[in-house]
């Protein structure tokens, strides 16, 4: 191997490394600025999560709509995952048919508020027949009726620095959405399913429906919604209980 050949090789390798490293720094800065980095971006799997989240966020940037179906396509079999919350408060509220239940909305909002089920039902409703897939592999189609989350967020007035919306249920399965998904017209706070009051196993009295992501993002048994500028301050700092259980925060798949 000649001297000049090895020197050129070294120079090329050095330049490539420098370009690669600065490229990564620029990508990370841009990603952070445009909200393309998921909260669970750490580790080797975090690289895959980040690539998927960033590319799907760019792809769906203009509020692309999840597919909607005809009433004849509604599934006859609708399985249930998980169990009702083991909470005395929840059981008490359920026994009163949720008449005393309130949804608390706070955090980075102009008017922190409490909403009763009757108040939520007085807002302009939206009904949609959408497909929901469980991460396990099974799926079903159902009709959901509720308030678009974006409408409720307008009512309470989201502050300019807000970036995420966090959902706290009566059980431990909390989660969050970025503001883009939260303001999507199909992201619902559903109180009815297939024309009936939301059945208890499906998350009564109120659940989230996020038709552009897997089923586990659709938090059941809602109790509180909080708007925040950073998920680092909430719980495990990873935006959801899912990363603790080995699942990703973003589930657009």
């Amino acid at each position, binding site marked *: 191997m000649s001297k000049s050949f090895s020197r050129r090789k070294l120079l090329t390798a050095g330049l490539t490394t420098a370009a690669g490293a600065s490229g990564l720094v620029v990508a990370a800065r841009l990603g952070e600025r445009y909200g393309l980095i998921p909260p669970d971006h750490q580790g080797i799997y975090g690289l895959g999560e980040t690539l998927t989240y960033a590319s799907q966020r760019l792809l769906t940037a203009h509020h692309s709509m999840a597919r909607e*179906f005809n009433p004849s396509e509604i599934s006859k079999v609708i399985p249930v995952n998980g169990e009702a919350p083991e909470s005395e408060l929840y059981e008490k509220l359920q026994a009163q048919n949720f008449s005393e239940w309130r949804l608390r909305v706070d955090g980075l909002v102009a008017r922190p508020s409490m909403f009763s089920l009757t108040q939520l039902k007085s807002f302009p409703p939206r009904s949609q027949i959408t497909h929901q897939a469980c991460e396990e592999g099974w799926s079903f189609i159902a009709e959901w009726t509720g308030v678009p989350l974006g409408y409720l967020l307008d009512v309470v007035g989201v502050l300019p620095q807000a970036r995420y919306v966090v959902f706290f249920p009566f059980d431990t399965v909390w989660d969050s959405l970025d503001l883009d998904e939260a303001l999507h017209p199909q992201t619902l706070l559903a109180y009815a399913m297939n024309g009936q009051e939301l059945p208890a196993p499906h998350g009564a009295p109120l659940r989230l429906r996020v038709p552009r992501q897997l089923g586990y993002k659709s938090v059941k048994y809602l109790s509180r919604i909080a708007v925040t500028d950073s998920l680092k301050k909430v719980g495990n700092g990873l935006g959801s209980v899912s990363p603790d259980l080995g699942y990703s925060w973003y589930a657009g*798949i």
Partner: protein
Amino acid sequence: MAESAYLGQLAIQSSEIQVRHSRTVRLTHWITAFSFFALLVSGIAILLAHPRLYWGETGAVGTPAIIDLPLPFVLTGQSGWGRSLHFLSAWVCVITGLVYVFSGFFMRHFQANLSFPRDRDSEVSNRYNVLQRVSYVLVIFGFFPLMISTGLAMSPAVTSVFPDLVTLLGGQQSARTVHFFAGSALLLFLIGHVAMVYRAGFRSRLLPMITGCAIAGDEGA
């Protein structure tokens, strides 16, 4: 002469030994091999959470399955790491595949090795037989693109932008089923591919895919 091939990289400088596989082909071959293995293992981990296959948009326990695989339902969270590894290796596999396909057209790799010339005595037909060329072309331009499109057809975010991806297949569960069978076909190809390499001689076939050099005087298949 055969001894020099054992020296691997040193042999690359000898003009007497022909280069059998280009550097791009070798590199993309092995990255694809590793990512395919990771996709296979993680794919099985995901499948085991619900080893039943359906046709149409929906399917669940309590609805008719088109295939009930004789496998246990594993609901202990194995699909969590399964999905993370699946998507990480899918990114690696897709990017590698794009590099391979574009460089393959650019560097005339496909024209030289995998085309179907009319002239039976041409150089091309000496290297791989028709069955081999048909299977390589099917895998590269048929099954891999099918795996990618059926994988994306299961994503509610992607189908919100490209609904035809899933509706043309007949639904999300159909996409899952086709993904399973296309993956099984790729696994069969892999078994056949490794068996052929074994039959032709591991050393004479594996070394060129690592070092790039064929053992002199060793031609064909």
